């Protein structure tokens, strides 16, 4: 049980796909012009991740080793098609904003990576927990990046006015350069916090010994 919780929490911080592993970066940079878009992309990716991990884990004994990567990609592409078509029908506005990056979930290395590294070796329930952890980790990273870019780029967060009229929006934050620079600074910040926390833990170990 302990290990199950650990595997779940791993995706949230220590092995956060965006900030620590640096995978799945194309949608991360492209769609995070606002917090809502970030959350939507995160949830769509999480859905594909959980479903494909489940199926891969169920079929792991049937899929021959040599053709496993193409088989995984076809499983993933199926779920991406489902997300794409249902989003187009139910949430057409959001679908237009996310555009090209919904079909590109097929080649998101996060999804294929979890299938190959985890789901193809572990039981179904474990794979679902792992996929959920990674999905939530991916979603909060996109939400944070989207919220920061929306705040400085328009003065709003989730569509609500946060910074008043005195604030002149930095338009660069909603453009491509803003995405790269914000993510660079965030990766640095997360690294700084991790280094600091590890130092604290080590000092506590020394004190108790």
């Amino acid at each position: 049980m302990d290990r199950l919780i650990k595997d779940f929490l791993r995706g949230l911080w220590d092995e956060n796909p965006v900030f620590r592993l640096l995978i799945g970066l194309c949608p991360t940079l492209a769609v995070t012009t606002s917090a809502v878009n970030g959350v939507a992309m995160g949830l769509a990716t999480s859905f594909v991740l959980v479903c494909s991990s489940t199926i891969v884990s169920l079929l792991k004994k049937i899929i021959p080793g040599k053709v496993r990567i193409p088989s995984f990609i076809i499983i993933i592409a199926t779920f991406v098609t489902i997300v794409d078509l249902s989003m187009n029908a139910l949430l057409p506005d959001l679908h237009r904003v996310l555009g090209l990056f919904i079909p590109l979930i097929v080649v998101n290395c996060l999804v294929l990576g979890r299938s190959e590294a985890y789901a193809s070796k572990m039981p179904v329930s474990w794979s679902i927990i792992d996929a959920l952890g990674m999905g939530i980790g991916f979603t909060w990273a996109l939400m944070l990046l989207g919220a920061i870019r929306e705040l400085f780029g328009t003065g709003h967060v989730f569509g609500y006015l946060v910074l008043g009229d005195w604030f002149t929006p930095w338009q660069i934050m909603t453009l491509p350069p803003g995405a790269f620079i914000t993510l660079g600074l965030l990766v640095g910040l997360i690294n700084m916090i991790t280094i600091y926390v590890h130092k604290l833990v080590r000092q506590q170990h020394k004190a108790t010994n």
Partner: protein
Amino acid sequence: MELFLVFLSAVLVNNFVLVRFLGICPFMGVSKQVETSLGMGLATTFVMVVASTVSWLIQHFILEPFGLPYLQYVAFILVIASMVQLVEMFLHKTSPTLYRSMGIFLPLITTNCAILGMALILVMRAFTFSQSLIFGIGAGVGFTLALVLLAGIREELEFADVPAPLRGAGIAFIIAGLLSLAFSGFSGLVS
């Protein structure tokens, strides 16, 4: 003239990496040395050129006549995966040294979203066959250009005094941001 504009637009104005955010993973992963990044760029360009023409043919001669547009993603990704396999076998036979230096990144071209993205864009924008071919070449050249530029800067950065938390990925993203800022200067070039 029109074909030249398609090329210029794909290389500079809508650069695949710095403006459209496609292919960021190899952009960050293989940009530590100019030489390997150039090899990676050329291999990707080759796959892009072949994939652009083949996916155009598949779209217009198989998916549309038989009414199978919902199979688009599955069909395109299979074409790209088999193209990459072909390049891999070809390189393995003709140039074993280059093959070895590219290592794991060669099969990973399959999951480079710039290639699937390019195939989907050329269908979306209803390009003709020759436009698709030029668009594929332009996309590949643009990708190689961005990759080599970043690799050149990162080689110099080895000797710079970067704050510890920003070392590696952090500073690379900030440099990419500055490059992207420079490329946004091209935005008025083609309307």
